[in-house]
């Protein structure tokens, strides 16, 4: 492209960006002469250059706008929203022509006559006069009626772009003219009274500024930056050498070199820095247009626009920011009427705030709109199948809000109207994370939403924590590090293992740990009895600990990409040279997180099921849990509802029957099952036993010590493959293994069941179909019902159950959960009742909510009875009743 043309394009685009902002300001301060003259000058420059370059179409449009602006400047015409809209429109026309010009290097064919005519009409006062005769009369004291023939938006709501603007003046519909009218003479008078000062002042300032800046190719700056980075590293090496030598003649010059280098680095860094206001420049215009379009009144406040950050970062956050502001204006803020009804001011406010904090830049985008509608998000989550109702019930509002960052939450256009928010928030999040930033969300329904973005100042130099592992040093970017924890056997924190998986208790939470040594295949991974450090890192919402051997300092490092032949190793985001001259690999916390996730996925093929169980039990219902100690390791727990009695048994009374220890208990033989497989019957001792009983059968689970009964939420945090264990949970602030009672019950009663069928051949087992999406409850209820003499078939969804119906299975009774993903229990009941084959099978609903209203709804859907989920006895009783009733009826 022609140099001249390309320079013209850059300059004109810049000027237009400035104009956008200035015009909106002008609309609010119609009588600011310096603003007006500046706008006039910019448009004039565009026109002049167009003429010089032979671009007639552009010139014509610019000329017409300039005419209108000239009349403003001379006080012959009032600044009205309509006029500003028209000038903005002409800027848009110029922009679109420029775009084509940039691509084809020629003006597109076309005709702007309509626009030019309207501009000319305005300049001559015709248009405005036709609509409102009083409008052009600048000093008309009585407020004229509706002077603005607004073609775009019936109730025009001008935007207050700067905090300093008296919003009241600009936002009232009739006010602009009414209030602008009295000061107009002053506006007109100022240029007349003192025409030289404003242009002189403005011109001087501008031209001297222009002389002081030059355009430099960005590549050149990038190169400079790289060179300076190298210089800094070399300087660091020299200083290190100097430190080891006493009385060196190099000391003084090196000190000097040190200072100069530091200053040079700072200076070059500055050339890359730009105020964040550059990324915001387009926002006032955007918000103004949106306000018109949506008939809203919006006040955009921008604080900290002078906050500087690296231009590379700036480029990357520009689009996400624009997107979020548009979202706030579009979906966040309510219409003026709604706002008044809610007792808020008519004008909605969007605040952008940027500031430095600890080597990072924080950008807040806040609105005082309606906030995120939790219920609407929930509906959407269920609709998209992102979570089940049970899972949602256990989530905090904060967790639910996070779903707006999920992909798929935003793609469908209809989501916008339902959820109120969230078009492309996943893209925003991805873009911000790509540059090593994070985004957080806070929203209070009815009060507004605040997004907080945290991004590194620059991508070239990052602050990193240097750690050692397996004799090698690695750098971890500081932005993802939350805290450091020293872990040793004698310290407060110690690494515990569940089935070999290391975990750490940290403030009442189990923190999953990743051994860097094992992950990087350094050494043998045997880390017991050693002092280690845990780097607590956060990636998105996932917090985990990285086990390392030592922690050194944090150091500013220059990130360099790794060699192409190593790019496939996802655990490294780059490499760098430290101050001492050695090369060090930079770990990528995202890579570690996904890698550790994969490992756990591979280790437990039921990882998904375990996660499901975790959510399923995350209810507000607290459960009574019996805590006890048995065998090695963590304390163990079992739901108290399963335990019939606690007994203390004299081991002298233990006898052996069929190779199994038994004890005479209430006139019957009770088999004893130890949790600890190495348990031996020791004479002359007593041992606590948990008695699981049903009817006149009972089984004793031998434990070492009963600790406590606690009321707590059973929240299985980590799944396991060990037989007899469901997983681990934090109970009473301790990592606790939750035992699978069903496993031990079947151990004791397997033989007995065989006998039972032999003994009562005529009385076949009643067949129960159990439908529950949560594996936790399936595991809990299946053994319970089996022990009670039912043949249980457990399925995880209503669809699966209906499949069994179609394949010809028959059951005596169906027990179904209500809250299930996909087809709910109520829908299932309706389907069963509508179905010919199973329509007479009794249906028992199982739910954590058992209010009278729920009962009614259940009955209507076709359930025979309704049982609360944790009520074991009620369930057994209901089953018995239901079956006998059906039999009686048959």
């Amino acid at each position, binding site marked *: 492209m022609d140099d001249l043309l390309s320079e013209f394009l850059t300059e004109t685009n810049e000027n237009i960006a400035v104009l956008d902002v200035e015009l909106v300001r002008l609309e609010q301060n119609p009588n600011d002469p310096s603003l007006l003259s500046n706008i006039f000058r910019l448009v004039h420059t565009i026109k002049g250059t167009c003429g010089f370059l032979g671009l007639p179409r552009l010139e014509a449009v610019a000329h017409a706008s300039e005419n209108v602006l000239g009349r403003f400047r001379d006080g012959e015409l009032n600044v009205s929203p309509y006029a500003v809209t028209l000038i903005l429109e002409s800027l848009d026309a110029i922009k679109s022509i420029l775009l084509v010009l940039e691509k084809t290097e020629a003006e597109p064919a076309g005709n702007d006559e309509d626009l030019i005519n309207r501009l000319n009409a305005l300049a001559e006062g015709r248009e405005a006069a036709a609509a409102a005769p009083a409008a052009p009369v600048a000093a008309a004291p009585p407020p004229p009626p509706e002077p603005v023939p607004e073609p775009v938006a019936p109730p025009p709501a001008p935007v207050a772009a700067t905090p300093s603007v008296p919003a009241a003046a600009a936002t009232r519909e009739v006010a602009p003219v009414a209030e602008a009218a009295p000061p107009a003479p002053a506006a007109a008078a100022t240029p007349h009274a003192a025409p030289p000062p404003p242009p002189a002042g403005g011109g001087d300032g501008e031209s001297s500024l222009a002389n002081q800046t030059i355009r430099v190719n960005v590549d050149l700056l990038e190169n400079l930056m790289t060179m300076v980075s190298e210089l800094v*590293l070399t300087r660091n090496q020299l200083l290190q050498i100097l430190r080891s030598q006493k009385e060196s003649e190099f000391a003084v010059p090196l000190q000097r070199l040190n200072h100069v280098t530091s200053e040079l680095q700072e200076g070059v860094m500055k050339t890359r820095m730009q105020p964040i206001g550059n990324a915001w420049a387009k926002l006032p215009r955007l918000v103004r247009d949106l306000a018109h379009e949506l008939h809203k009144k919006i006040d955009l406040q921008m604080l900290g626009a002078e906050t500087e950050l690296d231009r590379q970062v700036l480029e990357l956050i520009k689009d996400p920011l624009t997107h979020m502001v548009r979202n706030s204006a579009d979906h966040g803020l309510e219409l003026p009427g709604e706002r008044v009804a809610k007792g808020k001011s008519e004008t909605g406010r969007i605040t952008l705030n940027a500031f430095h904090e600890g080597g990072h830049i924080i950008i807040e985008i806040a609105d005082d709109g309606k906030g995120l509608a939790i219920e609407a998000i929930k509906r959407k989550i269920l609709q998209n199948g992102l979570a089940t109702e049970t899972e949602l019930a256990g989530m905090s509002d904060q967790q639910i809000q996070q779903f707006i960052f999920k992909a798929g939450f935003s793609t469908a256009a209809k989501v916008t109207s339902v959820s109120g928010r969230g078009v492309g928030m996943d893209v925003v999040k991805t873009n911000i994370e790509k540059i090593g930033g994070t985004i957080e969300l806070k929203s209070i329904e009815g009060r507004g939403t605040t997004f907080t973005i945290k991004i590194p100042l620059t991508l070239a130099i990052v602050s990193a924590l240097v750690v050692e592992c397996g004799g090698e040093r690695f750098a971890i970017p500081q932005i993802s590090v939350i805290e450091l924890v020293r872990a040793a056997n004698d310290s407060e924190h110690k690494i515990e293992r569940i089935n070999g998986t290391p975990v750490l208790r940290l403030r009442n939470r189990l923190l999953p740990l990743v051994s860097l040594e094992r992950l990087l295949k350094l050494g043998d991974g045997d880390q017991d009895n050693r002092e280690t450090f845990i780097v607590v890192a956060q990636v998105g919402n996932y917090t985990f600990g990285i086990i390392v051997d030592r922690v050194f300092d944090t150091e500013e490092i220059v990130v360099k990409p790794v*060699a*192409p*032949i*190593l790019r496939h*190793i996802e655990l490294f985001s780059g490499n760098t040279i430290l101050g001492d001259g050695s*090369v060090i690999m930079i770990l990528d916390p995202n890579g570690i997180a996904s890698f550790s996730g994969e490992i756990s996925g591979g280790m437990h093929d039921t990882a998904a099921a375990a996660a499901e169980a975790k959510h399923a039990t995350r209810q507000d219902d607290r459960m009574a849990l019996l805590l006890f100690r048995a065998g090695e390791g963590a304390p163990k727990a079992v739901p108290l509802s399963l335990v019939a009695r606690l007994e203390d048994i004299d081991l002298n009374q233990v006898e052996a029957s069929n190779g199994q220890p038994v004890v005479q208990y209430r006139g019957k033989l009770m088999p004893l099952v130890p949790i600890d497989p190495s348990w031996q019957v020791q004479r002359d001792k007593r041992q606590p036993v948990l008695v699981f009983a049903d009817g006149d059968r009972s089984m004793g689970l031998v434990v070492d010590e009963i600790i406590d009964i606690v009321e707590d939420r059973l929240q299985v945090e980590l799944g396991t493959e060990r037989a007899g264990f469901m997983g681990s949970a934090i109970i009473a602030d301790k990592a606790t293994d939750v035992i699978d009672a069903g496993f031990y019950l079947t151990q004791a009663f397997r033989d007995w069941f065989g006998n039972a069928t032999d003994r009562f051949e005529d009385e076949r087992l009643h067949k129960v179909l159990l439908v529950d999406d949560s594996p936790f409850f399936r595991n809990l209820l299946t053994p319970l019902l089996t022990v009670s003499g039912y043949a249980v078939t457990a399925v995880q969804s209503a669809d699966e159950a209906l499949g069994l119906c179609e394949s010809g299975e028959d059951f005596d009774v169906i027990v179904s959960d209500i809250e299930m993903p996909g087809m709910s229990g109520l829908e299932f009941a309706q389907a069963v009742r509508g179905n010919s084959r199973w329509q007479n099978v009794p249906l028992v609903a199982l739910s954590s909510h058992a209010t009278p209203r729920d009962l009614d709804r259940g009955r209507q859907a076709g359930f025979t009875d309704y049982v609360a989920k944790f009520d074991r006895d009620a369930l057994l009783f209901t089953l018995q009743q239901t079956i006998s009733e059906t039999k009686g009826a048959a």
Partner: protein
Amino acid sequence: MSTNLPAKRTASTEVAVVKNEDFVTMTIADQVFGIPVLQVQDVLGPQRITRIPLAPPEVAGSLNLRGRIVTAIDVRLRLGLPPRAADKPGMSIVVDHKGELYSLMVDSVGEVLSLTSDDFERQPATMDARWREVSTGIYRLRENLLVVLDVSRLLNFANTEAA
């Protein structure tokens, strides 16, 4: 960085005309190899090398060469030879490949030879497949044979492994 010996670049401009080509020679396990001198950036003595976990075994690690990060390749392992004895320090030849620097670790680096194409021959078909893959041919020297290494193929192992 104690022994940075800049490579000599003599008469390199006339190569094409007189069909002479200059090679930096080196030995690995008593075999002489050559790399076109124009591709060679530096010759280094023993260096402090940072191990790179999870990297292919042939990648010995990375090192700092005057502020640039250089990936070190153990040519012995690349050629399927046993690793060098720990007590032998070894030397490295730094080459530029697509803008990235690689340090080829060899037993020792010799002189620069100017060889005529008359002495050049394709590799014998019976040569080890791995050696054939990374070399372009053989020069008959008076006393021994020189295997010409092809740097881009030598560094291509990551791809061949992945495939």
